[in-house]
């Protein structure tokens, strides 16, 4: 397998843009990534795109085809990848494989989204074979409730307090305020977060991420091509995809068959382990990580589950400032989903952009000092998990 360089990155800021169409948002990200890479559209050998169920793609998730038509129909191959909220990262994985295998020298990976209002709901179909529909109809548990169940279990097991949860949000906004692409850049005090509306107990409004519009794009290329364009590019040391195990302890529908112990979100644990192994590093070798913080819970649980720190240690690391960009275990220096909101299928690529900016030393006030190796991680509906390690 050949080496893969992250040659160009580009992003349209996250927010709500009722007057813009999806193509124009994606176009901003793609143009920026190509310009950043110094690559002409006609040099792009293939496109890997995140499929959206919410916007564009001719209603069939053909979002890559929309982008190709917009950029110029050169006849190149397009791969539209669907993996729920992990779709952007899944597309990154396919782009990575296309370059690593030698199939293409230059690949564009793109994800863009215009989200409907409110929290993400079911497919909208009254289909009794759809476990998501059954969960809403027979029980009534929207997304934040799902995260709340995980959070409450952690509070019982580790003694995590409401103040601990709120402190994660305070920290996210402390770094996100420096990110010009973030949607929510205001600073919050602990009291602000604790006084925000209780949504799904124990999670409050400022402790969960809303939906946003946004787009991000990445240009990947072979080592040989990279040497012609850049003296010191960022490298994609690994990219891994996994799905949840049979014995996962978190029901994605109505029930599951858990093995003993902390078995939930196995798709995240497996993809991270695979990405670290392929990059030939351990979890403590990461200088920082961009992880999927749909809610504050994940910023506490995931680093422990992946071996970046000990179980039950996250709260004390948080309070000591160790998860800030200048700490010993920086988490989400971008500000994360809490500051961006979720433009579902674009999220995995916004993470790649942030990791690359950090490794180039171009992250300004939120820079992780001396960052040499970082990881991006996402999860999506259906038990999809992804992780990628970037280095310089």
């Amino acid at each position, binding site marked *: 397998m050949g080496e893969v360089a992250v040659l160009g990155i580009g992003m349209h800021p996250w927010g709500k843009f009722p007057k813009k169409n999806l193509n124009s948002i994606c176009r901003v990200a793609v143009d920026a990534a190509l310009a950043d890479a110094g690559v002409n559209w006609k040099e792009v050998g293939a496109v890997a795109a995140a499929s959206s169920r919410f916007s564009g793609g001719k209603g069939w998730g053909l979002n890559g085809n929309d982008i190709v038509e917009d950029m110029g129909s050169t006849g190149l191959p397009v791969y539209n990848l669907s993996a729920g909220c992990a779709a952007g990262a899944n597309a990154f994985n396919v782009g990575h494989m296309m370059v690593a295998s030698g199939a293409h020298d230059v690949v564009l990976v793109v994800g863009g989204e215009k989200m409907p209002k409110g929290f993400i709901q079911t497919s909208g179909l009254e289909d009794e074979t759809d476990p998501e529909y059954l969960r809403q109809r027979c*029980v009534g*548990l*929207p997304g934040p409730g799902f995260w709340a169940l*995980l959070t409450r279990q952690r509070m*019982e097991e580790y003694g995590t307090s409401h103040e601990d949860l709120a402190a994660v949000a305070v920290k996210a906004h402390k770094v996100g305020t420096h990110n010009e692409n973030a949607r929510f850049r205001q600073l919050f005090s602990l009291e602000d977060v604790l006084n925000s*509306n209780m949504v*799904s*107990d124990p999670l409050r409004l400022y402790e969960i991420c809303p939906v946003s519009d946004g787009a991000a794009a990445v240009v990947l290329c072979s080592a040989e091509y990279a040497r012609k364009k850049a003296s010191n590019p960022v490298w994609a040391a690994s990219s891994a995809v996994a799905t949840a195990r049979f014995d996962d302890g978190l029901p994605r529908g*109505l029930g599951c068959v858990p093995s003993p112990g902390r078995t939930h979100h196995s798709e995240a644990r497996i993809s991270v382990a695979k990405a670290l192994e392929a990059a030939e590093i351990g979890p403590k070798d990461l200088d920082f990580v961009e992880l999927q913080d749909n809610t504050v819970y994940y910023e506490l649980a995931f680093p422990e589950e992946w071996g970046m720190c000990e179980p039950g240690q996250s709260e004390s690391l948080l309070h000591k400032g160790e998860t800030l960009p200048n700490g010993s275990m920086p988490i989400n220096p971008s500000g994360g989903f809490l500051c961006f909101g979720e433009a579902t299928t674009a999220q995995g690529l916004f993470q790649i952009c942030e990791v690359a900016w950090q490794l180039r030393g171009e992250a300004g006030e939120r820079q992780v000092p001396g960052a040499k190796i970082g990881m991006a991680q996402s999860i999506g509906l259906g038990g999809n998990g992804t992780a990628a390690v970037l280095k310089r």
Partner: protein
Amino acid sequence: MTDSSPVHAAKDLFVETSDGPRLLGSRCETCRAPYFPSSEACHNPDCDHSDIQPAHFGPHGTLWSVTVQNYPPPPPVVASDPYSPYAVGLVDLETDGLRVIGRLHVEDPASVKVGGPVELVLAPLGQGQDGHEVISWQFEPR
């Protein structure tokens, strides 16, 4: 007069037996893996012969975690009118090997304790959009 006779939230998910309410699912006779809802094939990667047979689950379990839904979610969620917050739990069913989700049938949702015993009941969630009272499986703290 509107017809408000009770309807089940979904078909073939629960049943009232002479021993009380049970969840309707299935079990693989080869590896004993339980499924709720029922599965057409065994999903256990270590099982070499899928042999799915109907099975009843419940009624006793332990609460693994709980949340209180503080705002009214949109349809198809069914809730009381006027809305009052309800609790949803993840329950480890005794002897079945299943962890299942269910609404908690309780006066004060804030009073529910993680780790406590619960029992399966069939009870109304509220009135559906068509005016019918909607019955589903729920868990009652004991």
